[in-house]
């Protein structure tokens, strides 16, 4: 078998094999899933090291062939997808609360396979096939992670939001393919489309909606915080934190740089979308009182940085966006894993009930500190470097406002992680948590690995940039200059100011909240104007899904119901009534009377002869 097929076929086969294994076996399912994902990871690493390959099968005809290709960007993405799959399957080995183990690993492996397929597909139709497949497993993943009704509801919410945006993507792909005359992305890139006329703008916007919605950007993000409460920590660490971001940003980069040549307006649209996503989500994250829910808003907020980076359209910004994509997946996965560990060991994720766990869970705490520092952009961890690249790219475009918005986002990010870290790992430990112990090794291992990556990609930022980001930019046909290195320029000082401001803010909040860390955000939460806004947001007034479900869906479905009743009446009641009348009349007529029959026959014959004889 071709090596390129292993990361796709192997997980599918293993996932199907998993279903055959009895639910009662103890380690078999876990070990099979871990083995499959590790073998896939090795294959992905091998593919990454080999020169680019292409595997093409004739499919569907008419220029639509099933083409998988490992250009450097796709190979990098495949490697990342496989890495996270392997890490999460190891982490999930002893994680509770993930629902039925069989279905969990089935969904995990299926998601891995389809994500790998989407990453490798060169043909957009093939990519859509895998992309839409992910939607199915997104639904089952959430729906089967908990037994509750809320899980089903959130699963449906995630499914519907993504189904609508995937439909946009589908339409966009069809239009793009029609305009370009081919569905092969590499062929389109030789002769990029421009946004000079309406159809191509429409196509690009549809592709954009599909991509940013997969990445979980505003306003398509609303299912993520709900999933944080209604599904499991491994799911959050895997899908919204890693896989979705990777694929969404990957395709955003492909569409924005590889397939289309964007103009200034679209650049502004993208950067605005990024900045709004950063600010709205981080404002929400800042006031959350639940470990996973807080993290989930950050998962949305960080997407804003990546979109902002890609929206700058200059190599530095795009490099920053891609670098941030992989960095974010690393530390956010790590953070969700710490959330899962804390939940497993302490039994809750409610910040007001946690505290002082650093002594009890030193490794988890340490991993949290590293990842939190990385997400807040503290030098010299990986988040710092990718954010610096994005800031630099943003400043290069000349739109200073976006830079300020991004820095403001950074400030609130750090502030909220100060609050989170303080209230979970430091301060006074509640009575109920006296006996809390460190999480098991299988959970610590991937966590430590990711924390290690955060440090390594920070101190050795040169390595990932040289190995992953530069080749990716080359795959996108971009020329670029030096992308790494530490400069103590004004950007660095701005970041130091932001850190100081966040610490000050935290102390202010602590003082205002009576020394309770989980109340450190209340001075902003309950500030005038913001208080009312937050109250509305808590009531989901800004959630397009809930809005649509409340305001649009009931009248539409009522109208459709009425239309259906009408058609029912028209095709059921009316014809049967009419035929009933007619057949009733005919049975009354056929009464067996011989003279009547004879008269009918003779009259019929007479009319017949008259007609044939030419009488009109």
């Amino acid at each position, binding site marked *: 078998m071709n090596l390129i097929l292993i990361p796709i076929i192997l997980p599918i086969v293993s996932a199907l094999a998993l279903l055959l294994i009895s639910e009662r076996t103890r380690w078999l399912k876990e070990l099979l899933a871990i083995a499959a994902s590790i073998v896939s990871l090795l294959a992905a690493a091998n593919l990454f090291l080999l020169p680019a390959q292409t595997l093409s099968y004739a499919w569907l005809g008419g220029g639509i062939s099933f083409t998988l290709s490992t250009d450097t960007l796709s190979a990098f993405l495949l490697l990342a997808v496989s890495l996270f799959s392997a890490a999460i399957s190891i982490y999930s080995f002893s994680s509770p609360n993930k629902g039925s183990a069989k279905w969990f690993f089935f969904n995990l492996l299926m998601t891995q396979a389809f994500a790998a397929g989407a990453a490798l597909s060169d043909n957009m139709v093939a990519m859509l096939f895998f992309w839409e497949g992910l939607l199915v497993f997104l639904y089952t993943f959430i729906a089967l992670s908990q037994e509750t009704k809320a899980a089903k509801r959130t699963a449906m919410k995630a499914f519907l939001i993504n189904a609508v945006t995937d439909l946009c993507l589908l339409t966009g792909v069809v239009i793009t393919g029609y305009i370009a005359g081919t569905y092969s992305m590499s062929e389109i890139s030789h002769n990029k489309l421009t946004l000079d006329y309406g159809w191509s703008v429409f196509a690009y916007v549809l592709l954009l909606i599909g991509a940013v919605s997969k990445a979980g950007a505003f306003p398509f993000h609303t299912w993520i915080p709900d999933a944080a409460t209604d599904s499991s920590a491994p799911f959050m660490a895997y899908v919204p934190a890693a896989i979705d971001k990777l694929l969404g940003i990957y395709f955003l980069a492909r569409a924005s740089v590889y397939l289309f040549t964007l103009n200034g307006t679209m650049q502004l649209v993208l950067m605005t979308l990024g900045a709004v996503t950063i600010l709205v989500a981080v404002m929400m994250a800042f006031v959350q009182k639940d470990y996973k829910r807080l993290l989930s808003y950050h998962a949305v907020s960080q997407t804003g940085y990546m979109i902002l980076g890609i929206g700058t359209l200059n190599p530095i910004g795009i490099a920053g966006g891609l670098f941030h994509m992989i960095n974010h997946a690393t530390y956010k996965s790590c953070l969700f894993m710490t959330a899962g560990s804390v939940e497993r060991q302490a039994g809750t994720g409610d910040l007001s009930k946690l505290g002082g766990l650093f002594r009890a869970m030193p490794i988890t705490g340490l991993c949290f500190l590293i990842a939190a520092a990385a997400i807040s952009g503290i030098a010299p961890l990986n988040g710092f470097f990718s954010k610096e690249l994005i800031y630099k790219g943003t400043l290069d475009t000349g739109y200073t406002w976006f830079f300020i918005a991004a820095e403001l986002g950074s400030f609130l990010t750090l502030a909220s992680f100060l609050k989170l870290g303080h209230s979970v790992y430091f301060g006074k430990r509640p009575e109920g948590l006296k006996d809390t112990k460190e999480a098991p090794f299988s959970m610590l291992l991937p966590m430590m690995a990711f924390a290690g990556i955060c440090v390594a990609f920070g101190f050795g930022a040169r390595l990932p940039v040289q190995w992953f980001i530069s080749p990716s930019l080359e795959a996108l046909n971009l020329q670029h200059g030096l992308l790494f290195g530490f400069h103590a320029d004004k950007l660095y000082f701005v970041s130091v100011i932001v850190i100081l401001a966040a610490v000050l803010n935290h102390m202010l909040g602590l003082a205002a909240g009576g020394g309770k860390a989980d109340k450190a955000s209340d001075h902003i939460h309950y500030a005038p104007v913001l208080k009312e806004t937050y109250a509305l947001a808590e009531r989901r007034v800004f959630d397009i899904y809930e809005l649509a479900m409340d305001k649009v869906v009931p009248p539409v479905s009522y109208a459709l119901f009425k239309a259906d009743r009408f058609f029912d009446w028209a095709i059921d009641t009316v014809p049967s009534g009419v*035929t*009933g009348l*007619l*057949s*009733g009349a*005919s*049975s009354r007529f*056929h009464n*067996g009377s*011989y003279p*009547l*029959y*004879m008269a*009918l*026959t*003779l*009259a*019929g*014959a007479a009319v*017949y*002869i008259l*007609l*044939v*004889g*030419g009488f009109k």
Partner: protein
Amino acid sequence: MDKGLLAYLLIPLFTAVLIPFIARNRPRLADIFANVTLLAGLVNLLWLALRPSVIAGGFADIPGDALSLLLVAAVYLVGLCVTFFSAYFMEEGLPNRQAYYSLILTSIAAMTGVVTTGDFFTLYVFIEVLAVTSFALITTDDSAGGIEGAIKYFFLTFPASALIMVGIAIFMISLGSLSFDSLRVYMSSDMPDGPVVFASALIMLGFLIKSGVVPFHAWTPDAYQGSYAPVSAHLAGIVTKISGVYAVVKLATLLRFFDGRAQALSELVMFLGLLSIAVGAIAALRQTSFKRMLAFSSISQVGYIVLAAGLGTPLAIMGAVFHLINHATFKTTLFLNSASLEKAAGTTDMDKLGGMEHAMPWTSWTSVIALLSTAGVPPLSGFWSKLLIILALWESGLKTYAVLALLFSIVTLAYFMIMQRKVFFGRKSPAAERSSEVSAPLLAPAVLMCGVIVALGLLFPYFYQYVKVVAERIIL
């Protein structure tokens, strides 16, 4: 007269004469003679038509116009099913057992004569023979319903004979000949419409009355319902089709409807066909008696054949011939099964039956197959013939007719659904509790016919080839 097929006329006639003498003291011999005669004839016909070499040759070796052979085979097939069924169905003490078989064989001989003859007078003679035997057969069991049916059949169809006689007389005067070919030649010449076309129209009217086309249909329900049970299968399955519908199809080809000759007549025939389809289907919806519903369904199905005949294009004629054969298969099955039902459950009232599939699975499922074929459900044979007819209508630009024909085919499905639910499926009725499956010999004809239905449907390409040969030879 097609000399090659004369034996198929003479042998049953000979047996019919023989039976009263041979079986005088041993009535069972009558069964044996009748069945053996028909079986031998059928085997012979199958050998003629279905030898591998003939099939491989695209049926080019079929003697005559191929239509005669096909119809003789249908006559023999239905006749065999009816006699075989009767042999086990008739009560032992029935006084006129020998007469019954003689009449059946005579009617088969007459039908063979009808489909093989080449001139109008012979046609008329055989049709009258057929009518007389039918009157007698209907009253086999001396029931009041049978006698009423026979009288209605006789009185309501006698205008037909008169009209045919008048038409033949006009032919004799204006054409000087009664052969089919002289009419064909006349119609292909450039002569203006005149007495010949009028005479054809009268003859056509006679045959339309005999086919039971609306508004001349009033005798059919009573005749079919009242007649002795196996005879109703014989009558509905083949007799009225040969005595009426076959002649309509034949006349339609002779009058060259496909050339646009006798336009007014063609349109009128098509209209009557559609009217039959509609009235038959709508009237069938409300019937409560199994046999009466089948009778109205028969009117509706005859409408399809007449409609196609009125159109007269090669495709339509192919459809008409195919539907004629199909009608013989499924109507025979249904009427024989209704006889079985009557025997087992004691009634054919659909309100009293129900859940019969539990008590009589073979009868029920063969009926369901026949019903589905009648309603035109693929891949059964009835689907293909209706498809050909509707396609032919559509191709000729008669879209309204095509759509209406399709719509009423849905109504057909509707009334058969009603029948299926009321009679065969659903909760077990007291009648179903009482009754049990009839014996295997009574089932054999229905099973055989179902086999033919399924085979014709699945092997449609071969049959299509055959019907194409027919259409090529009769439309020359």
